[in-house]
């Protein structure tokens, strides 16, 4: 199944990581809707049921019971990977995630080593219930780890690490990146979970972001370079925990901060970063910190509306220019 010599997509990386996990650890199994013979709605588990019989199982449409079963299996020492067909549907299993999985260790000292894969984020034409970003609500609850890989390499290595972590991990894989992002090969080593990555070094301002928005931010930085601005882009990689040290060091270098997120404006990752930088690094800021998020409405269906709803590299560049001019 290893693709050598051909390009590997973000989706391939996720599939490879699962194959790797299934192969190396008999405690791992995959459970979710349509993941078995069908290979998953997004094809993230294609051929895995065949290669690992009895380890990749179709569930009924019961997100609550899916999550409860995963918790029970984790108590018994297994390492379940649950695929939610769309992040948006995880709300049906929300209770089990935040009240059962997230509280188990704190209440009983028994760890809950499960991984929930959430295909999240917007793609054109998907509409309000196939596009949501759920990282904010899960990050808010103590007891959960929330990962948001932005690269093919991170999709692979962070999913492997997620399965190995003894706590419940919410793995937010961006649907837009599935086929749009490709790499030459899978990594043999990686930054550990909990460390952010400097995606682009800069001098004049820092953009802190995650997942698909990292690529939009990099495009914006390219747009600003000929104007004489060197923009640093920080890829958070995980939104819980947040690597505050890397963010703070970057703002110390540049003095200006713009946070970008695809989620909605109220609260969320961008608010959290700014709260931390302002309270712990107030003296580092040469200008008021800014943020850019999606519009405060459900995600629209029509491409005209969808394209205006979320931050794009043009919008990011415009916000950056504003900040640079202050």
């Amino acid at each position, binding site marked *: 199944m290893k693709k050598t010599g051909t390009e590997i997509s973000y989706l391939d990386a996720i599939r490879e990581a699962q194959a790797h996990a299934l192969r190396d650890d008999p405690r791992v199994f995959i459970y979710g809707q349509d993941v078995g013979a069908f290979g998953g709605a997004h094809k993230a588990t294609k051929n895995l049921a065949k290669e690992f019989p009895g380890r990749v199982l179709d569930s009924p449409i019961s997100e609550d019971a899916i999550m409860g079963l995963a918790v029970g299996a984790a108590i018994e020492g297994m390492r379940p990977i649950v695929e939610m067909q769309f992040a948006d549907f995880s709300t049906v299993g929300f209770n089990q995630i935040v009240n059962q999985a997230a509280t188990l260790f704190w209440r009983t000292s028994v760890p809950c080593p499960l991984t929930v894969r959430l295909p999240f984020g917007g793609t054109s034409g998907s509409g309000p219930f196939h596009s949501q970003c759920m990282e904010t609500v899960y990050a808010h609850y103590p007891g959960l780890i929330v990962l948001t890989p932005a690269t093919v390499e991170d999709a692979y290595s962070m999913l492997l690490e997620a399965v190995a972590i003894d706590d419940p991990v919410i793995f937010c894989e961006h649907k837009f990146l599935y086929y749009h992002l490709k790499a030459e090969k899978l990594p043999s080593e990686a930054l550990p979970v909990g460390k952010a990555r400097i995606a682009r070094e800069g001098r004049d301002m820092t953009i802190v972001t995650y997942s698909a928005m990292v690529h939009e931010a990099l495009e914006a930085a390219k747009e600003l370079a000929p104007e004489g601005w060197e923009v640093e882009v920080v890829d958070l990689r995980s939104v819980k925990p947040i690597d505050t040290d890397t963010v703070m060091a970057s703002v110390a270098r540049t*003095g200006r901060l713009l946070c970008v997120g695809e989620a909605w404006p109220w609260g969320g990752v961008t608010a959290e970063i700014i709260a931390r930088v302002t309270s712990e690094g*107030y*003296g*580092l*800021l*040469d*200008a008021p910190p800014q943020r850019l998020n999606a519009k405060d409405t459900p995600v629209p269906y029509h491409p005209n509306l969808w394209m205006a709803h979320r931050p794009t590299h043009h919008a990011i560049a415009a916000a950056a220019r504003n900040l640079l001019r*202050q």
Partner: protein
Amino acid sequence: MPAIPIIMPQLGESIAEANIIGFLVKPGDTVEAGQDLIEVETNKANMTVTSPCGGRIEKITAQLNESYPVGATLGRIETTNEEVARLGLEVSAPTKPGDTDRVAKGNGRWSRVQPTVRGLPVPANAAGASFLSPRLKARMTELGLSAADLAGVAGSGAAGRVTVEDFEKFIAHLEKQRMSQASTMRVAVADAMRRSWTRPIAHVGMPVCLDPLFAYRKVARPKPGPALCALRALAVALAENSAPAGRLVGSKIVHPSSIDIAFAVEAEEGVLVPVLRNADKRPLKDLIAPYNELVELARERKLPPDATGGSIATVTNFGTFGLEWATPIPLPEQTLVLGMGAARHAPNWDSVKGQFVPIMEANLTLSFDHRVLDGGAAGRLLQHVADLMSEPEKL
């Protein structure tokens, strides 16, 4: 009567515009809903623009052989309200965002939610030329600088504010210049002068005849210096009316509780200002010894802590440097500085003799906080001091 625009319709999936090739109606014609009005040509076929409703053609604005995009207005039809309602057509002109909000409120009353708590007044603009960012302030604190030290630093930020980059460039530039360490006294005086200068300081001056003073000095024992005489004269004048030495705090004038007057003594690297307490209560001859003692202590930098501070005015004899006039700055907590210039021979008109006669003259200046004192009152005070100095035996 409402008028409906005639709009270029979406004539096909990828059609963006169409060319006008003929008009089937003219202004004034009565038409029915759906009637053909204008012939157009697209890159696929010839089509027609039909009437949105029944009514009368008010005007056609489209031109023959011109292209118009989908959605463009080609003319207007006058019609009835019923027709508009029947067809659910939009009649009103596009509203501004605020208007829509008001309309959307239904019953027309649109009130803002009143805040229940009134807090601190929020500055209208937290940025702008005077904005010092947290980072800039942190750096300034680190280097022991204040906003006054930034005067002359060019700001490249919004509204000309000094950004931290501008600041760092300034510091780097400074470090290329020759620098010597300023003494603690220099830094302290700098701080006092900066704080004092936040007030509007004004100056008045007048020449005063010193002959009576010099005559008195010939016979007096011990001999009072001219500055001390001026100090005592000022004390007497202020004892009669202390308002000119009051401090303005907000809308109140704080009157001095005792006439304590300081005098300037030049010491190494700066000026010390020891104080003669209750200078109004002791005659001139009793002030000489304490004055001389304080001068000695000041020169030796051995002034006790209670010898300075708490004065309501300062007297400075800049004449000792040969200066005829100067504009001294009062200490931050004072309103007045009385200055005396160098004595010189000067002609004075003697109206009795009808000619100029030589006298010894010096300029007497008064620097004051113009919020507390105006020119008239300053002048009157100065005149009173000059008058008192013309009878030194009474001081």
